[in-house]
C-alpha cells in the first residue's frame, strides 16, 4: 500500500523548488466492497482498492491542476505537467491563494468501526437477510409474487489527505454504506416495484431491515398505476421526494459562487424573506452518520453548523475559500470538489430542512383532492437558476377526501420552488428522513401543476 503522507510530503517539497508559488495536494485512498443482486441472488461480489491524487498550484494569479492515480508517483513528471498547465492559464484576478486555518477541525465522527470490520461473508449474509424482509413484507400485504429484482450493498472505507503550502495538513478516515434494492411485486397480472435507498456513514442492520419492511409494505399499493387527468392538485411529498426536489431545485442557489456569477435567483437577497416562515434550512456537518457529515471540507477548512435560511429569511450563503475572499467574508467550510484535481465550489455538507409538525399519514388524511408522491424520476433536471422544479411521478396515490382513490404514475409535476415554499406551502412535517446528505420531512404544497392525460 502507498504511504500517502510520505508521498504528499515529497510532492510538496518538490513543488516548493519547482517554480510554483503555491501548491495544494488532495489525495483519497479507499477500499470498496460491493455485492450486487439480480432476481433474489447475489450476482457478483467485488473489491476495489483505489487511490486518487490531485495537485493544484499557482504562479502569481495563474492557477491549474493535475490528477493521477499512480502509486509510483513521479514527482518530476507530475510537476512538469502542472507547470505547463498553469503557465498557459490566464490570470484569475480574484485569486487569493490557498487557505490557512487557525480554527482547526470540527470534531465530527464520520467513521463507523463496526461497519469497517464487517467481513465479506457478513455483508453477503446481511444482504440476504434484508432481501428476505423486503420480499416477505410485500407478500404479507397481498402480493402474489415478490422478488428483489436488482440492487447492491456497498461499503467503502476511505481516507482523505489534504496539505498545502500555507500549512494546512489534514487527514480523516470515513466509512460509507449504500444499499439500493428494487423489489418487484405482482398480483393478478399487474406489476409494480418499490425501491429502497439506504445511504449513510455506517450500517445499522436493524434500521436497514426495518426500512426494507416499510418499503416492502408499500409496494403493492402501486399495482395498476395509471396517469390521471391534467390539472392542478394538492401534493404531499414524502420525505425522500421532498429532499430530492429541494436538493436539485433549491440547494445550489445558496452557493456563493452561483450567486456571484449570476446563477442564483438569491443574488442580492441576503437577509430578505425568500421562503415561507415555516422554512428553516441548516447546513449541518454533524448529523449523526449522515453522508455529508465530516470534520473539514475539501480545502481542509473546518466545517460548521449554520442557518442558511431562518424562518424564511436568507441568512447565509455557503462559501469556499475563494468566494469568501472575493466577498470579504469568512469561509464557511463548504468548499467541495468533484474529483481530486477539481476546483472546490461551495456546497452543503448536509442539507437539513427543520421539522415543524404533522407527518405523511396526517397530511394524507387532510387532503381533499391531491396526490401523495412516494417516488419520482427526472427530478435532477430541475433548474436551481430559475427555481423551476419538475419531476415525473412513478409512485403516487390519488387521494380524495383523505382516502386513497387509485395509484398514479406517468404524471409530470412542476412549478417554481419559491412559490411552492411560500404561497403554496401548506405544511412541513416533523417526520424527518435522512437520505445521503439530505434530511427532510414531508411537505404539502397546494395547487401544483400536473400533466397527465
Amino acid at each position, binding site marked *: 500500500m502507498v504511504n500517502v503522507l510520505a508521498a504528499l510530503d515529497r510532492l510538496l517539497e518538490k513543488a516548493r523548488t519547482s517554480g510554483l508559488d503555491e501548491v495544494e495536494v488532495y489525495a483519497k485512498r479507499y477500499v470498496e466492497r460491493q455485492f450486487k443482486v*439480480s*432476481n*433474489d*441472488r*447475489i*450476482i*457478483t*461480489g*467485488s*473489491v*476495489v*482498492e*483505489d487511490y486518487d491524487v490531485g495537485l493544484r498550484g499557482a504562479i502569481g494569479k495563474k492557477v491549474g*491542476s*493535475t*490528477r*493521477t492515480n*499512480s*502509486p509510483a508517483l513521479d514527482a518530476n513528471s507530475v510537476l512538469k*505537467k502542472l507547470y*505547463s498547465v498553469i503557465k498557459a*492559464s*490566464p490570470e*484569475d*484576478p480574484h485569486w487569493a491563494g490557498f487557505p490557512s486555518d487557525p480554527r482547526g477541525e470540527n470534531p465530527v465522527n464520520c467513521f463507523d468501526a463496526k461497519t469497517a470490520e464487517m467481513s465479506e*461473508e457478513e*455483508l*453477503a449474509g446481511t444482504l*440476504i437477510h434484508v432481501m428476505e424482509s423486503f420480499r416477505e413484507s410485500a407478500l404479507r400485504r397481498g402480493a402474489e409474487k415478490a422478488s428483489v*429484482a*436488482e440492487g*447492491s450493498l456497498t461499503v467503502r472505507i476511505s481516507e482523505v489527505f489534504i496539505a498545502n503550502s500555507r500549512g494546512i495538513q489534514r487527514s480523516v478516515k470515513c466509512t460509507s454504506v449504500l444499499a439500493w434494492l*428494487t423489489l418487484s411485486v405482482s398480483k393478478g397480472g399487474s406489476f409494480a*416495484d418499490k425501491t429502497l435507498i439506504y445511504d449513510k456513514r455506517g450500517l445499522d442492520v436493524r434500521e436497514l431491515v426495518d426500512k426494507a419492511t416499510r418499503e416492502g409494505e408499500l409496494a403493492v399499493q402501486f399495482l395498476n*398505476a395509471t*396517469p390521471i387527468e*391534467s390539472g392542478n392538485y394538492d401534493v404531499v411529498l414524502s420525505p425522500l421526494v421532498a429532499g430530492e426536489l429541494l436538493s436539485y431545485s433549491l440547494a445550489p442557489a445558496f452557493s456563493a459562487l452561483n450567486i456571484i*456569477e449570476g446563477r442564483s*435567483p438569491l443574488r442580492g437577497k441576503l437577509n430578505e424573506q425568500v421562503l415561507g416562515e415555516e422554512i428553516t434550512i441548516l447546513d449541518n456537518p454533524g448529523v449523526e452518520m449522515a453522508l455529508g457529515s465530516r470534520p473539514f471540507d475539501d480545502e481542509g477548512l473546518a466545517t460548521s453548523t449554520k442557518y442558511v435560511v431562518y424562518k424564511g429569511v436568507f441568512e447565509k450563503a455557503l462559501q469556499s475559500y475563494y468566494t469568501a475572499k472575493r466577498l470579504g467574508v469568512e469561509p464557511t467550510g463548504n468548499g467541495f470538489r468533484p*474529483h481530486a*484535481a477539481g*476546483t472546490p465550489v461551495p456546497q452543503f455538507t448536509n442539507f437539513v430542512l427543520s421539522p415543524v409538525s404533522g407527518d405523511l399519514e396526517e397530511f394524507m388524511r387532510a387532503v381533499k383532492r391531491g396526490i401523495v408522491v412516494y*417516488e419520482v*424520476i*427526472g427530478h*435532477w*433536471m430541475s*433548474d436551481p*437558476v*430559475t427555481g423551476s422544479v419538475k*419531476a*415525473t411521478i*412513478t409512485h403516487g396515490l390519488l387521494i380524495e377526501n383523505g382516502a386513497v382513490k387509485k395509484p398514479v404514475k*406517468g*404524471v*409530470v409535476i*412542476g412549478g417554481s420552488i419559491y412559490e411552492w415554499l411560500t404561497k403554496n406551502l401548506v405544511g412541513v412535517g416533523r417526520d424527518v428522513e435522512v437520505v445521503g446528505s439530505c434530511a427532510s420531512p414531508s411537505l404539502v404544497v397546494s395547487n401544483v401543476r400536473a*400533466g*397527465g*392525460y
Partner: protein
Amino acid sequence: MFMLDAIEVVKLGLNLGVDFIDVRLQDYYSEYILLDNGVIREINTSHIRGVGIRVVVNGVTGYSSTYSLDKSEVERAVLRAYKVAKASFKAPHKVSFQERPTSRGRVSSSYSLEPEDIDFSEKISVLKAMDSVARGVSGIISVTLRLGYERDNRVYASSSGDYVECSRRMVGVSTRLVALVEGTYETLYDQKSSVAGWEFIKSSNWDEWVLERAKLVVESAKAPSVNPGQYDVVLDNEMVGLMLHEAFGHAAEGDTVLAGNSILGGKLGEKIASDLVTIVDNGLVEGGVFVPYDDEGTPKKKTYLVKEGVLAGYLHSLTTAKFLRGEPTGNARVMSYQHPLLVRQTNTYMEPGDWEVEEMVRDMKMGLYISGCGSMGGQVNPLMGSFTFTSGPSYIVEGGEPKKLVKGVMLSGLILETLKKVDAVGRDLVVRTSVFGGCGKDNQVVRVGGGGPHVRVRGFTIGG
C-alpha cells in the same frame, strides 16, 4: 502503453484454479478547461491507470481492481476477486457464458490532429472568443464554457484466448448560458462533441454556435410555458435519441430483463410499436460513440431491437445472452477498470422513414415542435414502464407551422404505449454523442450516442 502484460494476469488466475478469468487494463488521459464568465475556473489534466479482474469460481463471479500495476499488487487483486466470489456462495446467481469465436483485434478511432500536441493557450483561446461573443448578447448574465478531451486506451484479455486493444479519442465544447430578461431568469445547456481529434474543434464555427444559443436563451426568457396536458408532437433528432434511450433502450438491456425488472421481459416477437418504428443499437455509426468491441471482447454488432414495430431482441453480455437464449451483441461495458460489467447501450437510434420534416409539421396542424437544444437528459423506471425527459425551448405549431417559442418542457410517457403512437418518421438521420457525460446506471456513467430522424408522436404527456 502499459507496464503490465494482461495475459500474465490471466495466468495468475488460472494458477489459482478459477474456471474463468478476464482482465481489463485501462490507461485514461483527459484534459478539461472551464471558463466561467471569462475567468478560468478550472484547467486540469487527469491520467488514470489500473487493472480490473473478473474471475468465475464454481459458476460464481468475483471482481477486483487495483490502481497499482505492480506484480505483487496485481496478484493480491486476483486473490481478492477469488475470495469475494467465494463469499457470495450463500445465495449465488451462477453464470455461464454464451459461446462466440475468440476475439483478437487492435483498433483505434481516427483523428488527424493529436489534441495532446495542441498548446493549452490555443484551447483557451477558443473558449475566450466564444465568451466574448456570448456576453455581447443583451440579456446574457452568465456564460460558462467547457472544453473536454479524453483518450481512453483499453486492453482486454481472457482465459478463453481473447485479446483486444481499443483506443478512442473524443473532444467537445459545451456551454451553459443564463439570461435575465425583465426580472425572469432562463438557462440553456448544450454541447457538441465528436470521436475525433483537434481537427473537430478547428473545423467548427464555435462563435456562431454559441451566438445562436445565446440569442435563443434570451428569447426563451420572454417565452410562455406550455399548459400541462397531452399534445401531438414532432420530436427533433436529438429528442428522438433521448426518447429511445429512455423509453426503450434501458428496458431492453439484458441484465435488467434477466433481473425481472423490465416491462419488456417475455415480450420478444410482440408488437410494441407502430409499423414505422425500427430501432437499432450500433457501436459504429457516424456522429456516435466509438465501440468496436465491448469490455468483454465481443465485437459490437448492429443489433435490431425493434423491427417494424415488433420487439426483435435485447442487448446482451455473454452471460445474459446465455440465460436469455440470445446472441452476444457486444453490449457488456464498464465505466472504468474499477467497475463490474453491466449491459449498456452504445448508439441507439431509429432508422429513417420517408417523411420530410416540413411535411410532418404541416400535416400535424396543431401541436408542439420539440427541440433537443437545451435538453438536460432523461430517466426511466423500466418495470413501472414510466420514462421522462426534458426539452430545450420549443415551438407551438398552429396551422401546420411553428408559430410561437415556448420554454422547455418535461415529457412523460409509458414504454408500451408511446412508440405505438408514432405516425410519421423522417428521412433525416442524425446521431450525436458527448464527451461531457453519458448514460448513468448503477453508479457507472458510460459514453453513449443516440438520435434518429424527426418523428411525430400523437398524444404525448407534457408538463409545463
